[in-house]
């Protein structure tokens, strides 16, 4: 394991019950404070890979090691943010976040305090008592992120978190997300993002893993060496974009 590696994915394979192999022998490591993105053609198994990493789906072969310890059950230390923005409609923003704290913190006021702090981290101070119906998609996704952060995760898995937001909202959240996630108030040490949006991936990531083939494998592991904040007009941005495109095509 490399120095500072937080998460190690070691030879992961997943085969559907029907017998179809989705991906095979996926191995990579994610270091401390590293933002890694996974890209690949539609249907290649990126979202499934995130679920296998979080053990929501047990792998057919291989293992996931978090801080030197093998993951054998779903754990809030590896938290998943859904593409579809899932918040409980009958709970306020505060309750939506507090639900993951309640069992771990006996004192209700302490749980409230943690939930409030995480809502503040994601920029939702003052929106604690709003119900999801009263919030925009962007605000709801911030609630989902606050919920994940309140659970004290080590790794955050984000499955196309901006896909259902309009472009302006998505861009606003994108600009903030890196600093929200690696805020000193959180326990987070690494992020893995799955996305189809290559601009988004280049804007946010320290590394990009490209999946391709059937069954899918990691065909490229690219470090993005552009200082932040990144601008799509930067010529290096386009160079990286070309490299990713060349790994993605042809779709195998």
């Amino acid at each position, binding site marked *: 394991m490399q120095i500072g590696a937080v998460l190690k994915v070691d030879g992961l394979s997943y085969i559907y019950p029907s017998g179809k192999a989705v991906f095979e022998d996926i191995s990579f490591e994610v270091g401390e404070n590293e933002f890694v993105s996974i890209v690949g053609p539609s249907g290649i198994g990126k979202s499934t890979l995130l679920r296998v990493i979080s053990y929501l789906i047990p792998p057919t072969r291989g293992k996931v090691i978090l801080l030197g310890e093998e993951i054998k059950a*779903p754990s809030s230390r590896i*938290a998943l943010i859904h593409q579809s923005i899932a918040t*409980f*409609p009958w*709970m306020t923003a505060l309750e939506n976040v507090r639900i993951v704290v309640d*069992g771990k913190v006996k004192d209700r006021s302490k749980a409230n305090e943690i939930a409030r702090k995480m809502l503040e981290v994601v920029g939702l101070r003052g929106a604690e008592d709003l119900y999801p119906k009263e919030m925009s*998609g962007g605000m*709801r996704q911030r609630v989902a992120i606050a919920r994940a952060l309140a659970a004290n995760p080590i790794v955050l898995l984000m499955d196309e978190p901006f896909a259902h937001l309009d472009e302006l909202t998505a861009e606003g959240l994108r600009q903030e997300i890196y600093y929200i996630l690696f805020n000193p108030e959180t326990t987070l040490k690494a992020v893995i993002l799955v996305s189809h949006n290559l601009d988004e991936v280049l804007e946010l990531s320290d590394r990009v893993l490209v999946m391709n083939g059937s069954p899918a494998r990691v065909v490229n592991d690219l470090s993005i060496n552009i200082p932040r904040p990144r601008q799509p007009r930067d010529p290096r941005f386009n160079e990286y974009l070309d490299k990713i495109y060349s790994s993605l095509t042809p779709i195998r």
Partner: protein
Amino acid sequence: MNPIIVIAAASTATMARVLALIGLTILVGWFMAYGATRNGFIESVYVSAIAALESVPVITFFPVVLMVFVYRIGGPVGTELATDVLVLTAIAWNIWIAQYQALKTIPNDLLEVSRNYEFGFWKTMRRLIVPYSMPKIAANLFPSFADALFYITVSEVFTVGTKTYSTFGIGSLIAELIASGNWSLVWYAMASLAIWVVALTFFFRWFARYSVSKYGLDTAMQVRRRGRTSLRRTYQAWGSLVGPMKRLSRHFSTLARVPAIPIAERRAGWRILKRTTKYVVIGIGAFLMFVISLEIGEFIISVPGTYWLFLLGYTPLILYNLAFDYLRVFIITVISLLIAVFVGYALAVRQRVAAFVLPVVQVLSAFPAPVYFPLVFIATYRYVVHIPFGTELYVLFLGFISTFYYVFYSFWIGVQAVPNEFWEIMRNYELGYFKKLRSIVLPGTLPYLVAGLSSTIDSAWGGLMIGEYWPNIYDGKGLIVRYGLMKMLDLYTYSGNIGLAGWSSLIFAIIVVIFSISFTKALMDLARKKYVIEEGVYGV
């Protein structure tokens, strides 16, 4: 004649009666729903009438049915019609409201296609309305079938005063065989009924899967308007579908989020249909209203004023007995709810076990409780009779087996409809069993639970009606409770006091409707407003 052939013929006759009535209901329902969607006034009357009628337990129609068909028409035809109408009241409302909902949710794009290419009335009906309503009809077939079987087996034979009326069928035959103590033939008769129940249950399951896969719309096409929905029936209906459940649930929830189409545009969708049809529908409706009003008016005038006073004098006693029945219904409901939640949840999270257990439960739920209850009674009464409240235990048990499945299925389906994202959140954040149940699963399934509870409460009355006064189940032993309105209804009917039975039914119906409006509907409105779990997933 060979008794086996008689048994086979009797069970076939019963099933033919049920299927023919379901078929008739569906056929009539298409035209009525069509009429309702064409005219705002008819629509309001139609939906309100169904909402009121479906909240009244089937048994309250019994005295009315007796009065109209047995006394006025009489003979075998009158008895047959009485049975058929009683069964019709058990099956019609949910199928009709489902057909109405189907018509109201036809995607605007498809309606525009039918207008664009100048489909006529019959072509629109054949190519659009009938296929589009198939999944909703299929989803409602099983509850209707189970309800119909429950009521048909008790309505095929009934006693009024000294006279017993019966029509040929497996219900009347089993009653006859039990009375004569011919136990081997009773077993054959039950086996024959069981074969039909199993075959038809599996047929309905297959049909549900087929209709969803062939006619189900799984896209976010814009619909005209959802119309006024019957949440109870909508949620309950999913109970018949195991395989395509999630898809249908998604389909429903997608429709729920679609914005309403302006009324002018909505109406324009139906302009292809001729104006004359509208007047025909209005004419038929007016004629029916006239006939019913005439009957009611004639009845009120024919009853002397002193008799009305006599009936009013009985009202406190009726209410007193009704309070006991509400207590029984409450106990049955609480027990059903507890079992439904814990067993339903356990099954919902164990799909492999559920795949085996649910069809079995489904078949059992369709098998009418009044048919097999005497066997349970005969096997146990020697022991139970010594227990305090032994009769009450039997009555509660009968009420329970008659009605438990509704809340069980509704809850189970509700759990199935919980989006996968929420299951992942529960697992990901390692929420405990009771935390999951209390904070997510129970609130998230509330609309389904309320729907199931509503059906359970309504159907419990049917079980009580049978159990509170069943004087001779076997060997002179039977069930007679001390207090209970259902017993009073039975007694009045058996003694031929139809006036008092009708009055008791009317008081009962009024209380039930008030309860339904003040409690069930309020709870359902809350569930619909706040606890629709599908709305928690933003990006669908």
